[in-house]
């Protein structure tokens, strides 16, 4: 086990992990703490979503080490078509959105809602501005 930083979309956490090359193995408590996913009899679950563990990929996803049952978060990312990137020198992993999140953005005419801070740190959401026409402009200092 070694220390690593896992950036799981908006979450950032340090954990003891068992990295084997580019494969990221975690204990089950670390899995839930880092990603919100939990291994249950029906599959890998978070909130209302459960992803069944295909029999053919079970050995690639779930293993046993001295620390107990371990889960391969990178293999799970492949299963759910979730992009990830890894920096070996600094032991940092980044995980993006699951396939079902990034593939369905065309399904609605509604402008995607968001919540961002203003310069004073106060949060604003698109939905709170409903009822007025909105001109939304992205810019940058660079």
């Amino acid at each position: 086990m070694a220390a690593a930083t896992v950036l799981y979309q908006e979450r950032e956490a340090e954990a003891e992990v068992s990295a084997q090359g580019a494969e990221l193995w975690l204990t089950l408590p670390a899995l839930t703490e880092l990603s919100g996913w939990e291994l249950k009899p029906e599959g890998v679950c978070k909130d209302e979503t459960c992803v069944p563990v295909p029999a053919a990929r079970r050995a690639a996803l779930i293993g046993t080490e001295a620390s107990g049952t371990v889960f391969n978060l990178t293999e799970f990312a492949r299963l759910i078509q979730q992009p990830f990137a890894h920096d070996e020198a600094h032991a940092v992993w980044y995980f993006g959105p699951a396939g079902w999140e990034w593939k369905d953005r065309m399904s609605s005419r509604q402008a995607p809602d968001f919540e961002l801070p203003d310069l004073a740190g106060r949060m604003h959401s698109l939905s709170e501005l409903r009822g007025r026409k909105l001109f939304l402009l992205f810019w940058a200092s660079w």
Partner: protein
Amino acid sequence: MVTIACDAKGRAAAEPFTTAAHQQHPSLIDEKLTVAELYDARNVPAAFWIDEEGRMVRANDPIYAQRRNRETGEVTLNTEYLDAVRDWVAKGPQSKYLMDQERINARRPALDADDVAAAAEFHLGTYLALHGHAADALVHFKRAHALRPDNWTYKRQAWSLGDIERDYGTTFQEALKDPESGPFYPPLDLAGHG
């Protein structure tokens, strides 16, 4: 009107500009570029029109309201675009500048595996750069740029965190000519649904 600053360095980067502009509208900061990605702002500026019901009615206009000539200092207003915005304000759904879903989708195409792989490399690179590992961030920024050469947001943000000549062996002017990257700004096309 709402503006969103796409800056990994957040308030420190954005505030000198917002102060100088005396902004009166909500001036938001998207440090992780998550909303820029959600809207597919592959370069800035990028403007979107959203109606009273929260529907997107125009997408991804590469638009400046005014431009300053760097040599003469002369400022010219983009009256054509400002008139289009005024037309929408006055006529609402009857404005000829509103886009149908097909045109909006063309301005904001479906993501593919390269888009999201590029995003992952870009975000990892940004994290490393902001945590004092600028040299190691370059590997990931370059992967992101190779996966999505047409994403100028990823390029310009990465360049701003280092030195384009030293780190990327190019200049801004040379990068603009790279045929892989496509146009820096697509031509402004004001047409709505036809």
